[in-house]
C-alpha cells in the first residue's frame, strides 16, 4: 500500500499520465439514456450486494446530510484469476476478490470520498458521514425510489468467468507454451500469463438512477526469450478483450504466439537508428498510443477546467490537417476499453475530440460537464470503489485518411516506422509526450530497409498534430491489453490508428557523431 502511494507521489503526481503494457514487461457522445423502470425487488445486483432500496436511501441521506450538488454510491464486486506458466508448468495461480462501496459527495468542485469493504448498514453509514464532512450546508432529501437504467449489451457473454474452471484454461496456456517453443530452436524460455476478471458494478445516484453493469475482461500474454550466438533477446505479444472463453480460438491464440516469436527473432538483426529529428511513420494499430498521449490526456476536462493543459485555450481552433479526425468511443463491442456506462452511471457513446482538423470536445466527467454546462461524455472512470472518478479515455482512435500505406512509405527519404510499443507518457502542461518503440523499421529512400529496436520517441502534442502530413486508409484497433495510469489510478483502454506520417519527431538513438 505504502509503496504504491509513494510511487504515485514520486513519479506521477506532476500532471503527467502514463499508458503501459503489463508490469512484468517492464465523449463518449451522450446518448439520452432510455429508462425502463424494472421492479426493484427483483434486481439481482441489489441481491448480490445484500442491500435494498431502503438501505441505499438511508445511506444516501447520511451522505448528503450537509448538502450536495450530486452524490453517488458505487458498489463493486470483482473476482479475478491470474495464472502464469514458466518452464512448462504453472508457476503462479492466484485468485482474488475485491468488494466494497465507494461513497462520494460533490459540491461545486469539492469532493468528499470514503469507502468501506463491509457492506453492513452501520459501516456504510459511518463511511457516508466521513465523506459528508466536506460539505456544510443544508441536508438534501434523497430519492425514495430509484429508476433502474436499461442494462447494456456491449459485452454480454454466455458463460461468466466465475463459472470457468482452471482445467478449461490450462490447455490454452499449454498451447501458447508449446507453439512458442516449437517455433524456433533458439527459443529457450517462454512465459505465458493469463488473466480473467468478472466484475459487477451497481451505481446509485442522488438524481434517482440505479445503474448496473456486468463487466468481463480477459488477457493472454506470451513472453519469449531466445539466445543466438551468445546474444539473448526477449519479446512479447498479448491479446485482451471483454470476452469469454469462447473468444480464445486456436487461430487467435496461434497468431498471437507467432507475433511474439516474430517480434523476438527480428531483434537479433535489429539496431538502434541514428539519434535526432526525423520523419516517423506510425504503423496502423498500436500506434494509437500517439493519440492517447499526444492529445487524449490533454483533452481530459479536469486538466482544462484547472487551466493546466496545453489545450486549455484551443477549443474550436484548427489543430491539424482537415483529414485528421480523432475519436474516443466507449461503445465498440467487446473492446478492452468498452463500457456500457461509465463509473458515474452516464451512458457511453462517441466523442469526436478532433473532427476535420478542428478541436471539438473535451472528455467530461460529471464535475466538468456541470462547470462547462455541456452534456457528460461518459468519460468518468475509476479504478475501483477505492477511488473517486475523473475524466478518462475508453477506446481512442483516428479515422481513415486519404493516403495508402505504400504512398506514405514512399514519401520518406530517411526516417523510421514505429510498430510495437511498451509504454508512453505525457506532460500535460508542456504538451511533451513520449512513447517507447520496441520494434520498428528504418526507411531509406522510400523503402523499408532494416529492423530497429528499443528507442524512445518524444514530441510535443500540438506540434505533432500539425505535423501529421499523411493519413492512411487502413485504420485498425490494437488488440493488446493496454492499461492507462493517471493520478495513481489504472483503467483498461484501447487504441487504434491508420498508418500515419508525422513529418518530424525526436528519435532516441545512438552513433552520435
Amino acid at each position, binding site marked *: 500500500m505504502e509503496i504504491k502511494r509513494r510511487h504515485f507521489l514520486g513519479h506521477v503526481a506532476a500532471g503527467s499520465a502514463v499508458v503501459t503494457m503489463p508490469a512484468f514487461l517492464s465523449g463518449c457522445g451522450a446518448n439520452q439514456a432510455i429508462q425502463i423502470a424494472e421492479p426493484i425487488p427483483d434486481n439481482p445486483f441489489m441481491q448480490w450486494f445484500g442491500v435494498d432500496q431502503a438501505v441505499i436511501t438511508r445511506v444516501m441521506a447520511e451522505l448528503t446530510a450537509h448538502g450536495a450538488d450530486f452524490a453517488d454510491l458505487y458498489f463493486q464486486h470483482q473476482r479475478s484469476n491470474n495464472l502464469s506458466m514458466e518452464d512448462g508448468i504453472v508457476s503462479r495461480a492466484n*485468485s482474488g476478490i475485491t468488494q466494497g462501496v465507494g461513497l462520494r459527495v460533490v459540491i461545486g468542485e469539492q469532493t468528499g470520498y470514503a469507502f468501506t469493504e463491509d457492506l453492513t448498514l452501520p459501516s456504510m453509514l459511518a463511511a457516508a458521514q466521513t465523506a459528508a464532512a466536506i460539505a456544510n450546508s443544508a441536508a438534501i432529501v434523497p430519492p425514495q425510489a430509484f429508476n433502474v437504467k436499461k442494462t447494456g449489451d456491449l459485452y454480454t457473454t454466455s458463460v461468466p468467468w466465475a463459472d470457468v474452471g482452471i482445467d478449461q484454461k490450462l490447455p490454452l496456456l499449454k498451447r501458447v507454451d508449446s507453439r512458442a517453443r516449437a517455433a524456433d530452436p533458439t527459443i529457450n524460455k517462454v512465459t505465458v500469463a493469463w488473466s480473467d476478471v468478472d466484475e459487477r458494478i451497481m451505481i446509485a445516484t442522488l438524481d434517482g438512477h440505479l445503474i448496473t453493469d456486468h463487466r468481463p475482461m480477459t488477457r493472454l500474454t506470451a513472453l519469449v526469450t531466445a539466445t543466438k550466438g551468445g546474444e539473448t533477446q526477449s519479446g512479447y505479444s498479448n491479446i485482451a478483450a471483454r470476452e469469454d472463453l469462447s473468444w480464445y480460438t486456436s487461430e487467435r491464440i496461434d497468431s498471437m504466439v507467432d507475433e511474439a516469436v516474430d517480434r523476438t527473432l527480428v531483434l537479433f538483426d535489429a539496431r538502434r537508428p541514428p539519434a535526432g529529428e526525423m520523419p516517423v511513420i506510425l504503423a496502423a494499430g498500436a500506434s494509437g498510443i500517439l493519440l492517447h498521449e499526444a492529445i487524449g490526456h490533454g483533452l481530459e476536462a479536469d486538466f482544462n477546467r484547472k*487551466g493546466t493543459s496545453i489545450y486549455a485555450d484551443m477549443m474550436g481552433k484548427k489543430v491539424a490537417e482537415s483529414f485528421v479526425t480523432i475519436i474516443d468511443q466507449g461503445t465498440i463491442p467487446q473492446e478492452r476499453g468498452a463500457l456500457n456506462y461509465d463509473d458515474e452511471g452516464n451512458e457511453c457513446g462517441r466523442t469526436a475530440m478532433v473532427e476535420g482538423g478542428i478541436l471539438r470536445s473535451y472528455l467530461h466527467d460529471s464535475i466538468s460537464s456541470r462547470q462547462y454546462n455541456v452534456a457528460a461524455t461518459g468519460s468518468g472512470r475509476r479504478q475501483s470503489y477505492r477511488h473517486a472518478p475523473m475524466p478518462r479515455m475508453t477506446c481512442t482512435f483516428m479515422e481513415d485518411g486519404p493516403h495508402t500505406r505504400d504512398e506514405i512509405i514512399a514519401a520518406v527519404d530517411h526516417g523510421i516506422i514505429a510498430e510495437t510499443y511498451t509504454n508512453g507518457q505525457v506532460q500535460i502542461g508542456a504538451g511533451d509526450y513520449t512513447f517507447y518503440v520496441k520494434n520498428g523499421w528504418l526507411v531509406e529512400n522510400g523503402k523499408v530497409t532494416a529492423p530497429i529496436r528499443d528507442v524512445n520517441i518524444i514530441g510535443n502534442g500540438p506540434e505533432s498534430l500539425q505535423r501529421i502530413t499523411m493519413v492512411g486508409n487502413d485504420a485498425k484497433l490494437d488488440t493488446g491489453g493496454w492499461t492507462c495510469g493517471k493520478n495513481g489510478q489504472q483503467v483498461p483502454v484501447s487504441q487504434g490508428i491508420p498508418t500515419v506520417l508525422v513529418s518530424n519527431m525526436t528519435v*532516441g538513438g545512438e552513433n552520435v557523431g
Partner: protein
Amino acid sequence: MSADLIEKAGDAVAILVAAGADDAWATASVSRDVEFSYRDGALEKVQDTTSRSLAVQVYADGRYSSHQTTDLQPDRLHSFLREAVAITGALEPDPERNMIAAELFANRPLDDLDLVDSEVQSLDRDKRLSWCVALDDAARKHTRVISATSGVYDGSQSSASVSSNGFSGSQESTYCWKGASVTLRDRGDRRASDSFFAGAPHVGDVPEAGVIASTALERSLVRLDADKGPTMNAAMVVDARAAAQLIGRLMGPANARSIQQGRSFWAELIGEQAFSPKLSIVDDPLIIRGLASRHYDREGISAKVLPIVENGVVRNVYVDTYYGRKAGMQPTTGDPSNRRIAAGRQSLSELLSDVGSGLYVTSWLGGNADGTTGDFSLGLRGHMIENGQAGRPVGEMNVTGNLRDLFSRLTAVGNDPYPYSGTLAPSLVFADVDFSGV
C-alpha cells in the same frame, strides 16, 4: 491491533489446514489512508478510508496457489478459503515450490525501527487544512501561476502473518507526505510545471509545508521557456531525485526470477567488476525511520543488510525461495527494501563545475529499458551545462544507451542522497552519453 490481525491470520491458516492444505501462510492487513487536496485557495477533495484484506498461500500435495480477498464476512471467508484449497488441488505439482524453510525466518531482528509516529495517528482536520493553506500560499507566490494543487497524505498500515510451520509476526508503520504541483503560464499555449513531494514515517521528518511548496514553485519556474537541446555525445549529470529512478531501472532485472527466466543482463555479472568502481549499492531494511524498512520480507525472510554492488563488483542479487531453488541460488530476499547508494564528497554544484559542459537531467519522461539486454532509451527534462553551471532549460530530448555500459562510465557521485524515496541515491555523473534533440 496486531493481536487482532495475528488472530485473523491464524484462524485462516487453521481453516486452510483443516480443508486439506499441507502448509499455509496467511497475512491479514488493515490500512487507514487520509488525503486532503487543496487547489487555488479552496479545499478540493477529502478522502478518508480504512481498508482490510486477507491474503493466503496454500501448499497442498506438491501444488501451490495464492489468493486474497476484501470480503471478510465470516461465512463467505470460510468458503473462499475452502475453495482456495480446492483450486490448488486442480493444479499440477510444482516440485520447486515449497513452504519457506523455518531457518529463513528464524532470528528475526528485533531492532526498534521507529516506524510508527503517534503524531500521524492523531492528525486532525484542522492540522491538515493548515498545512494545505500553507502549501497553497507558497505554491502560488508568483504572477505566472495558473494553478497549484497541494496535498497532504497520511495514514498507517498494519499487517500480521502466520504460517503453519511456525511463523508469526506483525509489522506496523505510519506515513505523512506533503506536496504541491505548480503550473505556470509559459510562451504560447505552453505551461511549465513541476512538483515536489516529501514524506516520511514521522511528521517531524517532513519539511515545513512552505518549504515544500516553494521548492515545487522553484522547480516549475526553472522550466519556463524550455527548448530542445542539440543531438550530441556529452557528459550527463543526473540530479538525486532523477538518479533514484535511474537506479531503479538498473536494478529492475537484478533478481533470481529474471535471471532464471533468461531475461536479465545481470546473469553474467555476479562476482564481476560490472560497473564503475564509483558504484556501491546496499539493500538495507534496518534503517531507523526508513521509508521501506522492515523486520521481514513478504515471504517472511528475516531482514538483513545485503550488499548488491561493491565498488562496481556485483555481490548479490534479489533471490526469493522459489526462483532461488530453480536457479540454484541461496535466497537473500525477493523484494527490495531501502536501497542506499554510496555517496561521494562533492556537492551538485561542484559536480556541475567539474563537468564544465554537457546535460543536467532533472526528471525523466517516459522511456523504458530492456531487462534482457540492458538497452534503454528515456525521455528527459533538464538544463544544458554551460561554463560549469546549470544553464538554459531543455526538454523534448531522449538519452539512449545500455545500462551496464552507462554505469561503467559513472565518473562521479554526489554527497546529496535524495531522502524522500526508498532508493537513497545521490547525484550521478556519466561520461560519453548519447542525446537526441535538434
